[in-house]
């Protein structure tokens, strides 16, 4: 039995609450009257995920059964979500392995000759061999990897891209396939089946047309239309419940007043370890940590139908209704985001998670009013993974000191990051993020920057906050003090409790 998401209003007796602050444990006492948004607990999982998969493949929505679709197919392309989702990784074996095996069994029965398994990383980093094995399972990995039939997408390799139309190029495995099965693992609205195709397996130009500054919303639809008209697509959505921490970090997934003695002890121990040796503790506890995910549903068939059903389900799972917008919105980054899987969280990613991801999880109306203030908890440590984040490190060190204005960045610097040979080399051969990746993150936070009058980071490295163009404060009280210039001394405060919740703002009645 799952419990719905709800709003808790704090009073004097409310104990310290868990505030998201990147990898770590931060307990904070909230001012009286703060609205804390708790997400709902997971909806019921399917009792048997295998059964759900088989059923979905046998009776898809808006399409013939997969068995029929596969008849006569010679070249099959399987597009699979990359390691970015879910983040943190799934404990135990990955659901993708199971689904792929089921699909491939059907493909074998249908006598499909050529199979390619393509990871839809888009402009995110490619995966290492061991990551691929983790995602697809040993059976699929050993069957296809060494033949070169299982690989990550390379958006810059022009000779392995097929042009479908003007400005639309896709990976040639997809472009030349007789059937494309798009396996999308999703747990949040926004990671739709279609989007995995338009951004995950397309060429650099095509993907960037949707990720650049203020993109035309029609582009995505156009690209998807081109793809679906060029190749038949069978969509499979595996909808996951929100992850639950296992092991020593179990307490992070429970509501604070339900903590047992061992949870309290664990919280205290982790906090103590973080003050003594922050970097080692984070590495030990959070790097490589996994969460337990359940399958809520498997939808298969036509893209539109599948997307519709998935959206419905996720809205029910994720949304929390609130009345009106607040003056102050408090949030923080999750411990791992899709942009720093297996890597340290750099300031750009932290900013993205708070200002693009959390801020943008709304049903049309942001949770904070225009001109309101966002307060984010994050250390903003100036740490960049040397292997994955070489472009982000340069962006932070060279571009941001010059300007934080997104338009100026686009005009002066975007071309350099798009074409730099070292970034391309690192992306193509060493598994680094694409050179345009930091710009993607930067543009994504612009709506929040434009919407809010001030963005304050609590407990953050001052230099890093200043570099990003924001302010820093040492405590929440100081931050509210700074914010009082914009929102007054008694603002309406809202806290987004982990994990991220989708806010549905309804109008105040009467």
């Amino acid at each position, binding site marked *: 039995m799952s419990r719905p998401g709800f709003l808790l209003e704090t009073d004097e007796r409310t104990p310290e609450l868990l505030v998201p602050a990147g990898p770590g444990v931060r307990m904070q006492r909230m001012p009286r009257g703060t609205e804390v948004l708790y997400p709902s607990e997971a909806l019921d999982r399917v009792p048997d995920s295998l059964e759900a998969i088989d059923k979905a493949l046998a009776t898809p929505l808006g399409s013939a059964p997969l068995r029929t679709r596969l008849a006569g197919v010679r070249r099959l392309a399987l597009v699979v979500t990359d390691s970015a989702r879910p983040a943190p990784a799934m*404990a*135990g*074996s*990955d659901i993708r*392995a199971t689904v792929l*095996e089921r699909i*491939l*069994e059907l*493909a*074998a*029965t*249908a*006598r499909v000759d050529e*199979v390619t398994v393509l990871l839809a990383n888009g402009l995110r980093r490619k995966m290492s061999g*061991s990551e691929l*094995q*983790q995602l697809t*399972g*040993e*059976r*699929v990995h*050993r*069957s*296809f990897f*060494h033949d070169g039939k299982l690989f990550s997408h390379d958006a810059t390799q022009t000779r392995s891209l097929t042009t479908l139309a003007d400005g639309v190029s896709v990976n040639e495995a997809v472009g030349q396939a007789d059937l494309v099965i798009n396996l999308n693992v999703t747990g949040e609205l926004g990671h739709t089946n279609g989007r995995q195709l338009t951004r995950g397996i397309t060429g650099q130009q095509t993907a960037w047309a949707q990720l650049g500054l203020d993109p035309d919303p029609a582009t995505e639809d156009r690209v998807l239309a081109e793809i679906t008209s060029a190749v038949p697509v069978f969509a499979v959505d595996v909808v996951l419940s929100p992850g639950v921490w296992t092991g020593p970090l179990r307490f992070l997934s429970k509501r604070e007043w339900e903590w047992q003695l061992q949870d309290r002890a664990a919280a205290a121990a982790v906090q103590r370890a973080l003050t003594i040796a922050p970097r080692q503790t984070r590495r030990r506890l959070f790097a490589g940590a996994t969460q337990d995910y359940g399958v809520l549903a498997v939808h298969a068939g036509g893209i539109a139908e599948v997307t519709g059903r998935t959206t419905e389900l996720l809205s029910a799972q994720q949304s929390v209704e609130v009345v009106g917008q607040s003056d102050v919105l408090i949030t923080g980054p999750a411990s791992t985001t899709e942009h720093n899987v297996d890597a340290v969280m750099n300031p750009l990613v932290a900013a993205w998670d708070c200002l693009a991801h959390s801020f943008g999880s709304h049903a049309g109306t942001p949770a904070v009013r225009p001109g309101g203030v966002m307060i984010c908890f994050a250390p903003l440590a100036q740490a960049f993974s040397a292997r994955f984040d070489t472009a982000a490190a340069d962006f932070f060190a060279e571009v941001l000191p010059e300007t934080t204005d997104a338009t100026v960045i686009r005009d002066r610097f975007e071309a350099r990051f798009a074409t730099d040979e070292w970034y391309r080399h690192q992306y193509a051969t060493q598994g680094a993020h694409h050179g345009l990746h930091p710009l993607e993150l930067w543009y994504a936070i612009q709506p929040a920057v434009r919407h809010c009058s001030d963005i304050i980071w609590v407990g953050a490295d001052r230099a890093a906050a200043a570099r990003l163009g924001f302010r820093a404060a040492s405590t929440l009280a100081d931050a509210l003090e700074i914010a009082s210039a914009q929102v007054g001394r008694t603002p309406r405060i809202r806290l987004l409790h982990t994990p991220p919740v989708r806010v549905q703002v309804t109008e105040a009645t009467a």
Partner: protein
Amino acid sequence: MSGICRAGARGVTWYGTQRVPRGGAVLVSNHPTDHDARLLAGAVAGPILVIRQLGDRVGRSWGVRAMDFDHPGAQADLIVLALKRGLKVLTFPEQEPGPTLRRFHEYPAELAERARVPLVPVGIRGAYAAATDPDIRIRFGEPIPAGTPSTTTVAAHAAVMDLLAEDSTSWWQVQQVRARGEDPSEAVESGANWLRVWAQTAAPRLGHTPPTRRIWR
């Protein structure tokens, strides 16, 4: 790597342990050597009962329960009760060790049908080699739901053959072979070859992987 393959004792890797169901199940495994039971120790959670055919030497030193598959006797009821309670039972339906995959006795399938628990096929490969640098791979397949013993025994035999073929070639190749209606048994080393292989010290290689050349000899 957890969930994909787990490390067991030195040189032993288990694949697909996530497929083993939670509750009671009867594991049916091929039987290359006398030490097969030890190899599976720890592979699955929970207690596991090993049953051997009378005369089979496997696990004798630990006091593994022996019974005659043709004349099971009263012990069978206890075993069925245990299975219903959630215990797992490991059996070697070939009844004695050997280098090839031979006929399966139907008794483990009967046990499974009586207790209404699934059969889990297990393929062991690489155990038939000298112990200098062992590379033993144990694969667990999809559980076969309880049904008439004859049908499920045939299905289990095919599944174990598939698992061994999967190890020596690749899973996809096995799927394709089966789709063509063929038996992947050709992929499994033939009996004559095995006897020659038995004298060698090199372990049978994992299929469909490029030859790993080491840096140092």
